[in-house]
């Protein structure tokens, strides 16, 4: 591993109680602790965030919608057993991978079959499975110190700046000082 080629970690984020976990991207880090910290600094500079996950890339299993079609029939009678895998799905025409739920599998391929049985739709373009045991997560109890500071930094929001009201005022003044048209 060269000194600029750190391990990749997938980052998942749950913004509010009502919204599902979403796959937001990846970070590089030399180890697990810095992976979670980097994930926070790269992806949570603004509200909202309840919980953050980082998972080493070699523990994330991804299949395209085209690849899984062939497995569908053999998945229908599948029995869930083994460890927990979280299932993220992305529709073909949509942009985001969202958490659909969890299944069990003895291997990632088994878990995929369980996921197909539970969630299949022809509209799904990406199937992403994440084993629970590989998930590094922020503690809910630490939410104030991990994500709270982002809430106070109002200057990161566009409406913190008075450009609209200032331009309106300037246009109004120019309107008032224009000579009347005959």
């Amino acid at each position: 591993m060269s000194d600029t080629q750190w391990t990749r970690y997938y980052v998942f984020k749950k913004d509010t109680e009502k919204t599902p976990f979403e796959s937001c991207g990846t970070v590089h880090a030399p180890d697990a602790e810095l992976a979670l910290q980097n994930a926070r600094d790269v992806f949570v500079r603004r509200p909202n965030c309840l919980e953050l996950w980082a998972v080493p890339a070699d523990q994330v299993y991804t299949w395209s919608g085209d690849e899984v079609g062939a497995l569908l029939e053999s998945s229908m009678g599948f029995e869930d057993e083994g460890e927990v895998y979280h299932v993220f799905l992305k529709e073909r025409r949509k942009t985001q991978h969202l958490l659909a739920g969890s299944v069990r599998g003895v291997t990632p391929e088994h878990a995929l079959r369980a996921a197909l049985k539970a969630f299949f739709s022809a509209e799904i373009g990406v199937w992403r499975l994440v084993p629970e045991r590989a998930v590094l997560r922020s503690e809910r109890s630490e939410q104030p110190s991990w994500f709270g500071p982002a809430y106070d930094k109002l200057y990161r929001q566009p409406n913190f700046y008075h450009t609209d009201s200032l331009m309106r005022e300037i246009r109004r003044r120019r309107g008032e000082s224009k000579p009347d048209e005959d």
Partner: protein
Amino acid sequence: MKTELGSALGAYLLALADDELILAHRNSEWCGHAPILEEDIAFANLALDEMGHALIWYRLLADVCGEDPDRYPDQLVYTRTAPEFRNVQLVEQPKGDWAYTLVRQFVFDAFEAVRLERLVESSYPPLAQAAAKIQGEEFYHLRHTRAWVHRLGLGTKESNRRMQAAVEAVWPDARQLIAPMEAEAPLVAEGIVPPSGDLEAAWLERVRPEFEAAELALPEDVHPRADSRRDHTESLRDLLAELQHVARAFPEMMAW
């Protein structure tokens, strides 16, 4: 609040605020130049938090002095001369190499954590509230700097050598943090602030084990060069020249 007490509290708050501001300023110098992109982002966050903390203390100071909290902080930062600043010499030193910056940050964060633990119990509610707010963010800072001290102390022979040199450069100046602040006595008597000297034991308890685990030796029996927070180095002269020159040229921008 009685005038004498108010004046003493003002001096104390000014010292806290100046420490945060000058340190944040030094940290912001790394933006665009950090050893790795991820840490550029993380360290900018530390600096942003610290500037926020400086503003909290400056605004509280404005309230205590009967000044406008929206104007007074900028006046203090942009129009005072070097002898009027009340930060410790530790924070005005140039940023040095990454080891110096990290060790300084860790040592400062550890001291701040210890002081904040006492300030949240201040008998003056606005101070206790401000401390509670800042404390939340400081938990994360310490988690970050501890992790880095550990990794750089143990990483390679080269990183350990640099970290050891940094500890030896930082620690004498850092000792100024426990020197009693001018006029802190009446504040201590009223339970508004803890005596600065009392914080030493708790501070060492935070710092020693981390340095030991990182195979770094804390120098014994070292003393700060400064006699008081009124004493500054030419580093502060240079820092303020850069910090203040645009505001001094265009004072109306201080309100922007």
